[in-house]
């Protein structure tokens, strides 16, 4: 996990702390977005995702670090961001139970922190999944009700309910991104677009789990990170649930065509005769937040290809998790 401190411009004796759980595709992008906004220092702290007893120790260390940091400086606001989740779309209940267990512990830690930091305003941000919640639904709008079809979606719904119960004590934002694509460095799960780009570059075969006519909604990770970073930075907030989709449908055929056009090399594909992830998921533009301006799909794919090409040249060291481990001040 990453602990970030933002120095207030108006006063030297106050700061904002941000505890980010999960430095994967979205988490890493949020850190970079916060860095772009300036006045930020951050450090990576250990958090054991497998061993619950070790995790309890790690969380108490995190509390200690927060209190030490006080050192004459008041933490005006603490934003806790849950962007973790190793379990993917096809994950089983056992794997997801571990994740929900960790999530509950982080929520409990947040509650405890609110008791310890009495003069600090606490805000909880949770990354959910529009795909998991609305799988098989098209034309999703603000009145659409989540109807998960698999364990992954049910887990996300359970997590959302826990955040909603937290809203009695503090602000809790829920972000429901649709299918995310973007440069993720070396590690982490990879969606359709990322897989196509990476495999096209390495001349490998991509396995398509959806149908060629499956329609989805794709959003660039930097757009999501920028939106969340704005919510973290802005002074006034109130609990909200956001659907972060593009409102622009794209079929798998179209994604393949765009990727092929952008990369300029053939894509080697293997299609599943009985696709396991072929449900349509689309969103109406009216469901999206007003200040949400997602980038055009082709431009987004071009940006990812450019970043990936850059990472091939620099060995991906700059963007990998190693860089986040170093103490850094801006």
């Amino acid at each position, binding site marked *: 996990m990453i602990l970030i401190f933002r120095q207030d411009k108006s006063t030297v004796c106050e700061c904002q702390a941000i505890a980010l759980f999960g430095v994967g595709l979205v988490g890493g992008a949020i850190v970079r977005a916060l860095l772009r906004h300036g006045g930020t220092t951050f450090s990576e702290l250990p958090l054991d995702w497998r061993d619950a007893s070790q995790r309890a120790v790690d969380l108490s260390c995190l509390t200690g670090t927060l209190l030490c940091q006080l050192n004459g400086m008041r933490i005006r606001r603490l934003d806790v961001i849950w962007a973790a989740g190793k379990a993917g779309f096809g994950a089983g209940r056992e794997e997801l139970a571990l994740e929900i267990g960790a999530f509950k512990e982080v929520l409990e830690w947040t509650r405890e922190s609110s008791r310890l930091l009495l003069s600090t305003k606490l805000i909880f941000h949770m990354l959910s999944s529009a795909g998991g919640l609305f799988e098989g639904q098209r034309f999703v709008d603000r009145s659409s009700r989540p109807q998960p079809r698999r364990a992954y979606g049910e887990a996300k719904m359970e997590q959302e309910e826990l955040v909603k119960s937290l809203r009695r004590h503090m602000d809790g934002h829920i972000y429901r991104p649709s299918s995310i694509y973007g440069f993720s460095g070396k590690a982490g799960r990879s969606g359709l677009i990322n897989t196509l780009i990476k495999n096209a570059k390495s001349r490998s075969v991509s396995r398509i789990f959806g*149908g060629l006519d499956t329609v989805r909604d794709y959003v660039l990770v930097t757009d999501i990170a920028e939106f969340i970073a704005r919510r973290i930075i802005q002074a006034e907030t109130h609990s909200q649930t956001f659907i972060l989709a593009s409102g622009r449908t794209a079929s798998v055929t179209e994604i393949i065509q765009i990727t092929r056009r952008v990369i300029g090399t053939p894509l080697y594909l293997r299609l599943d005769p009985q696709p396991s992830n072929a449900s349509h998921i689309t969103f109406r533009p*009216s469901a999206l937040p007003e200040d949400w301006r997602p980038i055009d799909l082709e431009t987004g794919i071009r940006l990812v290809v450019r970043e990936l090409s850059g990472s091939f040249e620099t060995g991906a060291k700059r963007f990998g998790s190693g860089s986040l481990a170093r103490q850094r001040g801006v």
Partner: protein
Amino acid sequence: MLRDAPISVSVVVPVYSGEVYLPVLVEHLEMVRADWRVRSAPMDLSEVIFVDDAAVDGSPAVLDRLAKEHNWITVIHMMRNFGQHAATIAGILHSSGDWVVTMDEDLQHPPAEIENLLKQAVLGGADIVYGRSVGAVHEVRSRDWTSKGFKRLMVFLTGNTSIAYFTSFRLLRGSLARAASSVCAYETYFDVALSWFTESVQFCSLELKDQRFIKGGRSGYSFGRLLTHARRLLISSQVKSVRLFGLFGLVVVAASAIGGVSLLVEKIFSPESISIQGWTSLMLLLLLFGGIITCMVSLALEYLSTLILAANGKPIFFAVDRSIDGPLFKYFSSDAT
């Protein structure tokens, strides 16, 4: 695959100067939408996508107002005028429906006929249904004849018989519409791209009238635009005349070879019958090499044509799932009896 019910229909309307017609069009579409819901029909008019193709009148503001009033309306504003085909493609690429209807902004294509197109597609097992006018669309003989004559010429030149049906009032299977739209390049003719994916094309005879032309004498088509259409149609299609050209070359080569053999026989067995020396053999040589060159040129054109089609995105294959038509088939079958 798990099916989402009901069968969704998306409507795509490119807009260039429809300020006057748009509120009425939306009213008609809303009536269709409400009627289907009241009748508990298995299909739903789920979305209407208006593509403002840098409209020259007050259409953008009208569209934005309509989108605020109806959450099933989506408006896409194009940065500049890209043309009707590009606007239609953009709209289709934003659609999610199982079926997609494309129609004009000016009430030439009545929304009430969407159900007839759907019925024709489902009962006839078609992937594309074009709305074809039974009468004179423009009510001006010269204008209607020009349109028909142009299509017949294109059918002759390209060998694509579907061209005779091409109109902008079409019902398309959603997966096909989005796939064809995604392969379209800058100069690809959209309807030709559709014909790369399916041969299940039908037409539905309808009473269509170009009210804008009949009342105001204004038409979206000029002679220049007709030529542009012809050029794009020919570029997107495998031109049949190139093959005829090659065939002609082969015939010439064969004729010159036969002529050469007969001349040789004549020279050997009755040389006294040849009064002028050299002229016939020169002509035969010219014919032979002319034929060979014609064949080679047509072969090169055939290669070029294949490359252009590949660049335009002609697919190697495309699979279709027609099982979604089941509930509609049942509904329309019972309706017919």
